[in-house]
């Protein structure tokens, strides 16, 4: 039986992971590093701060308890804001990972450490990105990517000493039923397309857009965490060959806008133009210069992640598929319309009951 310590338990992914751990027959207890006071039954919430060098900010008694009992650590805590400034991103993501690894090194049962990362540690690389590849000098689109890259370097360096497994995730769009629990950059982008506030997107028509369903990602992580055969290596949980092209995603989004809100058609909103990164950046700069709030909100979201589309790449997940051959991946072309429907139904306001909105 396993005792699992999960950081980032109040995040979208952390919550989904805990949901699966809770009902897993081999999990006896879960320590959840969380910001929330209300947690599901069977979870022991612990309060701390991954950026604290001493015992992750846990009180001494709790830290000692986890150190002596934990058999698995899942490090899901991160600063995932794509607009984060480099110092903030590095502090949480590199510093936090180092602190976590130091903490793990002092655990008595040599727990397997699952470090969650992003496929976008590949930064501005183009082409196929394999799971065994990390180091490059192509640069990054934002500080988040760079900080996760540095965090992975730290994790890799500790692999000889600790049983560390890195799990890189692609863009988690929603669960496979289309339920969105928190709005992320892609959801906002869809809102801007729907509202005629996003005129262009960088890239080419064929730029791959890699998306993954939340439940698939959580299932993969839990299985990797609990599988005794898993190696100290890197896995990519991503769409892989099942990804939309940028043009296909835009076409599908606009098709869904009409399908789920027929009256939307009469707006006759043009699909965003797919443009060079140079043109996109010129537009962003212009909007920032004219200082209009409404448009700035739009480009403020898009500019931190959309440029990634100008560096087309496909993520390979062969190692993951070999490790978990029976893990079924939801078809993203079937998930995507459900997500759009959910967002339209709730008006991009997740304060309303999403379950109802997505039914």
């Amino acid at each position, binding site marked *: 039986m396993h005792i699992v310590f999960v950081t980032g338990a109040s995040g979208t992914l952390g919550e989904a992971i805990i949901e699966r751990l809770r009902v897993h027959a081999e999990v006896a207890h879960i320590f959840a590093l969380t910001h929330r006071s209300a947690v599901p039954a069977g979870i022991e919430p612990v309060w701390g701060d991954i950026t604290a060098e001493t015992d992750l900010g846990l009180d001494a008694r709790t830290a000692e308890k986890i150190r002596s009992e934990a058999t698995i650590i899942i490090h899901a805590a991160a600063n995932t804001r794509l607009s984060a400034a480099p110092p903030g991103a590095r502090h949480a993501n590199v510093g936090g990972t180092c602190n976590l690894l130091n903490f793990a090194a002092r655990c008595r049962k040599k727990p397997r450490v699952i470090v969650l990362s992003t496929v976008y540690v590949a930064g501005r690389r183009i082409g196929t990105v394999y799971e065994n590849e990390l180091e490059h000098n192509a640069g990054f689109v934002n500080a988040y990517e760079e900080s996760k890259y540095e965090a992975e370097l730290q994790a890799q360096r500790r692999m000889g000493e600790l049983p560390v497994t890195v799990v890189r995730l692609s863009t988690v769009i929603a669960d496979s039923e289309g339920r969105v629990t928190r709005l992320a950059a892609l959801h906002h982008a869809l809102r801007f397309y729907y509202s005629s506030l996003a*005129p262009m997107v960088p890239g080419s028509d064929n730029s791959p857009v890699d998306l993954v369903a939340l439940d698939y990602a959580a299932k993969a992580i839990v299985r990797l965490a609990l599988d005794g055969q898993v190696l100290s290596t890197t896995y990519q949980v991503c769409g892989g060959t099942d990804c939309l092209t940028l043009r296909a995603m835009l076409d599908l989004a606009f098709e869904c806008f009409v399908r789920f809100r027929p009256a939307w058609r009469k707006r006759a909103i043009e699909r965003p133009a797919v443009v060079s990164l140079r043109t996109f950046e010129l537009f962003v700069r212009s909007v920032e210069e004219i200082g209009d709030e409404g448009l700035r909100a739009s480009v403020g979201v898009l500019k931190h992640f959309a440029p990634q589309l100008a560096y087309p790449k496909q993520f390979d997940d062969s190692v993951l598929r070999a490790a978990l051959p029976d893990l079924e991946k939801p078809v993203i072309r079937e998930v995507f319309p459900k997500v759009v429907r959910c967002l339209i139904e709730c008006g991009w306001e997740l304060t309303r009951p999403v379950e109802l909105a997505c039914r």
Partner: protein
Amino acid sequence: MSRADAFRLVSRHGRIGCVASITVSAIGISHIEYELPSEAIELEELHLRGLLESPPERLRQFGFARAYLSNRPGEEAALKAAHRLMQRSRVPTRDVAAIFYAGAIPQSHTVSGCGSGNLFNYPVAQLQYELELERATAIGISQVGCMGLNSAVAMARDFLISNGHAQHVLCISADVLPPGAKREILYNVISDGACAVLVSRGCECNRLRYRRQVTKGYYWDSVGKKNEIIAAYFPTAQHLINSTLEGAGLTKDDIRWIIPHNVSRRSWEILLDLVGLPIERLFTENIARVGHVIAADNWINLRDMMERKLVDSSDKLLLVNFGFGANWACAVLEY
């Protein structure tokens, strides 16, 4: 109808709004004249007078330098431009079959100084009288914003096609913003002015080869949907330019000049990047020299280019325009 008047009319309801396309031959623009106020005010002075929204430096970065401000009625400038055109063209007044008068703002459709009780004193009738165009049908064109004169020219072409006996249509636009009105609209610097364009049958010069227009009523609220209009401007214009070139049977390489409406140079850089046309083919000088003369830009620019002999015989010219309403138009002229 003569062979030269042969035309093709295609009307369809496409996914980007109501689109009408017409290809014609042997109807062209024979003469253009324009009238600007004598006073040009530099950006700093406009700023000091409280007539700008943005800092002058920003507008300068966008390619602007000054605006022309008039304290005279718009119809006066229209009359001057039209009178000069009639004199220089030497077209007999009896041969002008119609006069189309376009104004972007409501004030442009009432003769000034008549008092608020006179709602029906239309400048187009006054112009017809003053210019002695007694055979000309007089029609006003409104509610298409900065596309007024372009719409007038398009309608003039249609008029000549459908009236086989008609030889010329005089198109005029004039707009003078009210005293104290802001001179900046959507980050563009606005000038007062008037322009007259003569559309003539059998004119081999500036032949209207093809024109497309898109209207997107969703953006009718020019203030409330300001951001959406800015955002919609680019992909809609891109689509329109591409479909116009396709409809005209031309490639981007065939276009010698892009004749702009004088909105910010920055927006042109973005749009031409998007379309894949080099900025060097855009006539940009008048953005700084003249500013955005509401409905008259394309034609003022064409007039200046002809004057400076920048266009050669058979050059294909692309005229691109946007007007509140919300309308996008693109036309191919063959010089």
